[in-house]
């Protein structure tokens, strides 16, 4: 694997291999004195974040450091980006400075693909850590890892993705990955928050959350992304919360084994009630923990093999 840019058309075997590696890494690090592996010694990983992030940036940094890579963080403020340097020039600069892997988050959909194109003839790998409203593949992988921990196999499992699908890169990446792993995905959202072309996705679409709950193995809530909304997508926050928020009453409609996921950051009281977020069915802290192991696995699959000449 040279880059990880999207989960669309991901080979199920590759996805399973990454998830298995993440499992084994978790196991290898369990209860040890020294949480450091020498695997990526001497490799340089640069994170390049043009958007705010807590868990993604931190977990990539921890993932790299636990495998002994040198991790350098570049953000748009405090770098030459704020002087007007383009994405391309910044990426080529980082590549020339010796980056083996560039992890990029950018507000524009497709930014990671462009970047991978510019670095095509180099040995530098690119990981998409979220590009606009397009994809966030490592989030989908960590969600799949969490679901595998709780449910075993994903094959034939019914999983609903609820809320602001239109603006969500997490939803897109999850739809493709969960479908590749054999799960049966339903999108639940008001018509205004579904993208055009959703009929071509490998999903079923519903506008009624209550009707779906009793048959689900997992429900994934999405944050309502106010920063990407310019206009009225729903009448009011209160109305949205009543129609699509996972509250205590709805939690009771879910089967006992069903898992509640949220990619974070959560808006408690909006898409998820506080009691639900703290309930034992919620796997939100496990998601973050798995995030580190999954990102270690991704770095392992990208960097720990002989060089591929693309």
């Amino acid at each position, binding site marked *: 694997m040279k880059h990880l840019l999207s989960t669309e058309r991901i080979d199920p075997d590759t996805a399973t291999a990454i998830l298995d590696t993440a499992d*084994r890494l978790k196991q290898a690090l369990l209860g*040890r004195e020294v949480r450091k592996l*020498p*695997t990526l010694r001497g490799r340089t990983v640069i994170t390049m974040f043009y958007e705010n992030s807590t868990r993604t940036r931190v977990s990539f940094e921890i993932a790299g450091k636990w*495998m002994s890579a040198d991790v350098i963080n570049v953000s748009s403020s405090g770098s030459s980006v704020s002087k007007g340097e383009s994405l391309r020039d910044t990426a080529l600069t980082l590549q020339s400075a010796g980056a083996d892997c560039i992890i990029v988050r950018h507000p524009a959909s497709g930014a990671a693909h462009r970047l991978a194109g510019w670095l095509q003839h180099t040995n530098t790998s690119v990981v998409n850590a979220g590009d606009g409203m397009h994809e966030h593949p490592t989030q989908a992988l960590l969600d799949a890892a969490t679901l595998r921990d709780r449910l075993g196999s994903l094959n034939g499992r019914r999983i609903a993705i609820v809320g602001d699908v239109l603006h969500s890169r997490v939803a897109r990446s999850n739809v493709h990955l969960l479908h590749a792993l054999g799960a049966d995905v339903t999108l639940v959202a008001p018509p205004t928050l579904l993208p055009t072309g959703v009929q071509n996705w490998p999903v079923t679409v519903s506008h009624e959350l209550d009707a779906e709950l009793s048959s689900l193995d997992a429900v994934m809530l999405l944050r309502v992304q106010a920063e990407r909304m310019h206009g009225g997508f729903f009448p009011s926050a209160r109305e949205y919360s009543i129609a699509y928020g996972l509250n205590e009453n709805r939690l009771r409609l879910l089967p006992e084994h069903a898992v509640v996921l949220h990619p974070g950051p959560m808006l408690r009281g909006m898409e998820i009630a506080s009691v639900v977020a703290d309930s034992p069915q919620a796997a939100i802290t496990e998601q973050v923990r798995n995030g580190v192991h999954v990102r270690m696995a991704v770095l*392992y699959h990208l960097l*720990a*093999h*002989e060089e591929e000449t693309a």
Partner: protein
Amino acid sequence: MAHQIIEKTALDAPSAPDVVLMGIPSRGAPLARRLAEKIAEFSGTTPRTGTLDVTLYRDDLRRGPTRPLETTKLPDGGIDDKLIILVDDVLFSGRTIRAALDALRDHGRPQAVQLAVLVDRGHRELPIRADYVGKNLPTAKSEDVIVYLDEMDDRDGVLIR
């Protein structure tokens, strides 16, 4: 080999060391379990077993395609102050054992580490030797030594090719 281990470690004596057989996947793991059974049969003391995957410590990761990781399972209570016996199928260059020693160091501080191998085929590239050897097998460097185990291959055998 089981008798040798019982004799050398004196693990059935009153002041016996706490012996753990750590198999190196893939084929070292079932070998460690088999040795533990034999030791239990001959001495009445059952040593603990575990598995130690060394892939993340290898020095040749960048010389081939991505290697899948194997299971690591330490015994309850960890490896601190234990007598660890590493178990593997074939001892060749010694690089796997070098990686295993590094991995062990990150998991704790054993009292001592020993090595048991089913086949020693020579051609060491590092100053490493085994404490217990099932069979010394003179080979040419170009040959392959393949170990089959009933648990994974539905038969037992050692093949030189």
